[in-house]
């Protein structure tokens, strides 16, 4: 059985009476313990696609099958139960600003009704995994971006998920921090066998940790497969957009080198 199977998935939005096709006819499979990268430029539909994996976005048509269960067939409660097994981290971390680190990590467990003492023990374990035990009582505003993402990772792992979805998880971080977050993800993948799906516009990220990759262009999957088999159109993904094109391109080349050096 595949860990994640996406079949003929399409998603369109109606915006001011005009239909916008965000995704059309996506097919892909992710196996257990894969680190699967989905790369594409801004507006290619990456964020929409990854949100279909936990049904934060409902596809217009097609199926998302997680570990044999088709998400579209589940009712609200079953879907919520399934989501506890599919964790997610975000570009802007999305931590609760009014709760301290330990309470953020406990949060998914309290939602599930786990006893507080049990949840705390688990949370401290996870903070140790991400190397932030001493920050247990700090608030997110007192942490750096990299530290906040580590807290978000600990929080994501709290419910022992099978899958971790990463939505541009390193895009708001500097190259060194990106590298350390990526190596943390890689380590967790090795130690726990968790399946990771990440979307990014940075080729460096894909090259650093992914074993499989898919290229998304204007809502369509143009290539997918093992990283060594896919022809990655390298240059295309070095720019983001706008005037700072050249500077960004330079930054990203440096970024890629540093990440490659760090992750090895």
């Amino acid at each position: 059985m595949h860990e994640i199977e996406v079949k003929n998935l399409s998603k369109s939005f109606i915006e001011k009476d005009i239909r916008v096709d965000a995704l059309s006819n996506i097919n892909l499979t992710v196996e257990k313990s894969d680190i699967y990268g989905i790369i594409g430029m801004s507006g290619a539909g990456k964020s929409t696609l990854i949100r279909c994996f936990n049904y934060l976005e409902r596809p217009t048509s097609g199926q998302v099958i997680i570990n044999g269960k088709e998400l579209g067939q589940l009712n609200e409660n079953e879907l919520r139960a399934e989501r506890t097994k599919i964790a997610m981290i975000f570009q802007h971390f999305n931590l609760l600003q009014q709760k301290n680190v330990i309470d953020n990590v406990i949060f998914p467990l309290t939602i599930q009704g786990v006893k507080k003492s049990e949840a705390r023990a688990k949370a401290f374990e996870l903070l140790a995994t991400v190397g932030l035990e001493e920050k247990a009582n700090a608030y997110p505003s007192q942490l750096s971006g990299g530290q906040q993402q580590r807290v978000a990772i600990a929080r994501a792992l709290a419910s022992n998920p099978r899958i971790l979805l990463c939505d541009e998880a390193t895009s708001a971080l500097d190259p060194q921090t990106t590298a350390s977050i990526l190596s943390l993800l890689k380590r967790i993948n090795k130690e726990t066998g968790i399946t990771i799906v990440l979307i990014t516009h940075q080729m460096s990220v894909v090259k650093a940790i992914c074993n499989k990759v898919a290229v998304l262009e204007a809502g369509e999957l143009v290539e997918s497969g093992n990283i060594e088999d896919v022809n990655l159109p390298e240059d295309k993904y070095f720019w983001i957009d706008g005037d700072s094109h050249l500077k960004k391109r330079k930054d990203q080349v440096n970024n890629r080198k540093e990440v490659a050096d760090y992750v090895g």
Partner: protein
Amino acid sequence: MWDSTTINMILEGILQTIYMTVTSTVLGYLLGLPMGVLLTISDKNGLKPNPFLYKVLDAISNIVRSIPFLILLILLIPFTRQIVGQSYGSTATIVPLIICSAPYIARMVEASLKEVDPGVIEAAKAMGAGNTQIVFKVLLVEARTSLVTNATIALGSVLGYSAMAGTVGGGGLGDIAVRYGYYRYQTDIMLVTVVLLIVLFQIFQNSGMAVAKKLDHTKKS
């Protein structure tokens, strides 16, 4: 002039004003907070969009807010008499104060809750949280500083309105100011009540802001 009767009257006025203001605000929140939560979740980008419910609540809140308080006070006299048994005095004033403040409170609660980062709500959904959990464990918690700040503003406004009720025998410092300052030209008593209202307002304002500051963890410290 400043005999014990006058002083007692003013002391009683202070207590009545505090009683009216605090009770009305608390009961106003009892109505306004759920209404604000419902406005937030039923709105088109809310947790459970419901255009009909939103429109009804929106209309109620706008209609009540468009009636000047003094007119609402008079308009509600039969209703107040039904509930309290009389239409004058500080307990009777609480009824129109609640009805007047609840829609304002609902709007302020709505504004506070809509400030909560949609990303945090999305994260909670991704963890499998239901709408009730999102309301109680995310929205109300994340927005608490803004909620308390707005509650302070509400308390200040209700204090002002309670004084206005003095014109129709509403009790409290406003009542004293109107009876002595306006009808009897005793400017000194009026000035004293004004100073006392200012002092009360400052106390409410400063303690509210202190609580808000204590609750806020979004600033680096």
